[in-house]
């Protein structure tokens, strides 16, 4: 995964609370076994007047000409709640989204973001609202910068906010390292734990 240190891009605001993973990628859009081919299904219910025929709804924020190439989403409370489907993050990533900024996230969604190199940035609702108002005026000019090294959000000619991201998430994103590979390097400690644990809880081990 490429390291994520800083990203600047056009931001789109979808501020309704409780946007669930089925709204991000409807289940019926997940038609093939795999992690790709999902971008067209992103927000399908809102994005298209007719999802089957892929007729865009000009009112939907991502379909506005000024929002072309949006790569940062501003969201409402509990963004990514609902089903644990990682397809929601795969769809966002394939569409080109690199960061989501919201007052709170579905916990599984946030973890899925990090595993795929997307930054889930926590910011109080009032500040998300302020950013949304600034970028809405001219999304192309008022691009948003997400700086993970300094944990700072800034807008060209607009406000700047500091945010705080759990170390675990930030380091995973900044390093871009493969978590399985990293954990396998701790194999000896895991084996030692299992040997001790098996004596204490033999019923936990089925082989």
């Amino acid at each position, binding site marked *: 995964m490429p390291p994520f240190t800083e990203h600047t891009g056009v931001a789109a605001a979808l501020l309704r609370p409780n946007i669930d993973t089925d709204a991000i990628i409807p289940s019926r859009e997940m038609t093939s076994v*795999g992690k790709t081919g999902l971008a067209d299904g992103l927000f399908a219910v809102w994005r298209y007047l007719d999802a089957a025929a892929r007729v865009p709804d000009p009112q939907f924020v991502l379909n506005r000409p000024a929002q072309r190439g949006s790569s940062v989403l501003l969201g409402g409370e509990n963004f990514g709640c609902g089903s644990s489907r990682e397809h929601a993050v795969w769809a966002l990533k394939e569409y080109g989204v690199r960061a989501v900024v919201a007052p*709170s996230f*579905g916990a599984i969604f946030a973890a899925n973001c990090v595993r795929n190199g997307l930054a889930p940035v926590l910011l109080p609702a009032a500040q998300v609202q302020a950013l949304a108002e600034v970028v809405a005026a001219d999304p192309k000019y008022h691009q948003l910068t997400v700086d993970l090294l300094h944990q700072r959000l800034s807008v060209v000619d607009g406000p700047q906010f500091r945010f705080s991201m759990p170390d675990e998430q930030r380091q995973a994103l900044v390093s871009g390292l493969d978590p399985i590979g990293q954990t396998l390097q701790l194999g000896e400690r895991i084996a030692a734990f299992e040997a001790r644990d098996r004596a204490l809880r033999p019923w936990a081990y*089925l082989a």
Partner: protein
Amino acid sequence: MSRGRADLAPSSLFDKLWALHRIAELDDGATLLHIDRVFLHERTGGVALQSLAEAGHPVHRPRQAFATLDHIVDTLPGRAGRGDRTLMPGGEAFIRTTREATRAHGIRLFDLDDPDQGIVHVVSPEQGIVLPGLSLVCPDSHTCTQGAFGALAWGVGSSEAEHALATQTLRATRPRSMRVWFDGQLPVGVGAKDMILALIARDGASGARGAVVEFAGEAVRALSMEARMTLCNMAVEFSAFTGLVAPDDCTFDYLAGRPHAPQGALWPQAVAAWRCLHSDEGAAFDAESRLALDQLGPMLTWGTSPQHASAIDAVVPAPESSRDAAAAQAAATALDYMGLTPGQRLAGLPIDVAFIGSCTNSRLSDLRAAAELLRGRRVAPGVRALCVPGSGAVKRAAEAEGLHQVFLDAGFEWREPGCSMCFFAGGEQFGRQQRVVSTTNRNFEGRQGPGVRTHLASPVTVAASAIAGCLADPRALLRTP
């Protein structure tokens, strides 16, 4: 089951579960946790296993991984002759990929022809795969259901599932802890589904943001294992990391003799260890709250978030009464979607469909409770009613008691085990703007099909509504002999 530390401070159940699985503290503030069980299903299991194989990672302990077919399988009656056919376009590929990948990795699959196939969170407890004190993950958000056994069980994404399969561990940041006390006794006709809906309605769908929520109190002790599962099932709708109920004799009685539960001399040893899995007197929580049950009535959702729930005898609330502007806007949007106006009575609202099933309410006790109301009665004309047992074992047990005949005589479809129409996956669906009263867990926009209007409720409320042809209070029927 301490690890030999002289740790005398009172611990919560969650503290103990976390300590039991802690392998190492990592440099970045995360904890490396041991994962005892990984459960997969066909929606993502095939992807995860394929992806592991591509990366060249073997499954660390395939005997501790399990898989079932539930999410997109055909649940229409008489499935046995139809092979892998399912109504979801492309669905067969998910089934076959999962079958092939689990076979290649040596993982036990509850396949379509397995008598115990069913919904993961129904099958896992039935088989004794989840046990008190275990850690269990599954790429399904309702994995919190299994916290009812005093296990640390939570939903993860596919990549996390891959990590758990390859390393038997996960990196996790320690969640906050919370305890919710249910005080008093459940009135007649009111159950676990009503308890959890009332809690989420009161505190909001983000009320437990990332916390491990322990459900406690006399009323929880009095719940059966199946009812505890219903309670914990919807912890994720409360934004919890997971839900927990401390194990007790009710838990041990349920598990004794199940296929993967400890056998022989291991059983008393395990039970002795499990008896320590409770919150000590004086254990600290980041938050505690209480909810009184004595006045609780049957609950019903009116909107598009589980927090949009009221007592069945209430009226549709005005959006302005919401906690803040964003919630008011969301409530207004929800009412528009649901075709409701503030001040309208919920009871009496005509319905098109009644659905009984899902990992929330598809177990034997749910079916018994619904059948009790349906016995000798008929579904109202024009209402379509479905009952989908959660597993082959539930279906067999229900049929042994003749419950299937009660459902069929009442005019219900009696189906094959699976997740069925809890969600719309592109195959079967309810009609646009159809009003469905459902024992499922999510009433999101489009959850059960484009434009479908879902009202979440308990099995008895769904049964009563099916008979009345409209949203109905089950207590009226329970009072008539």
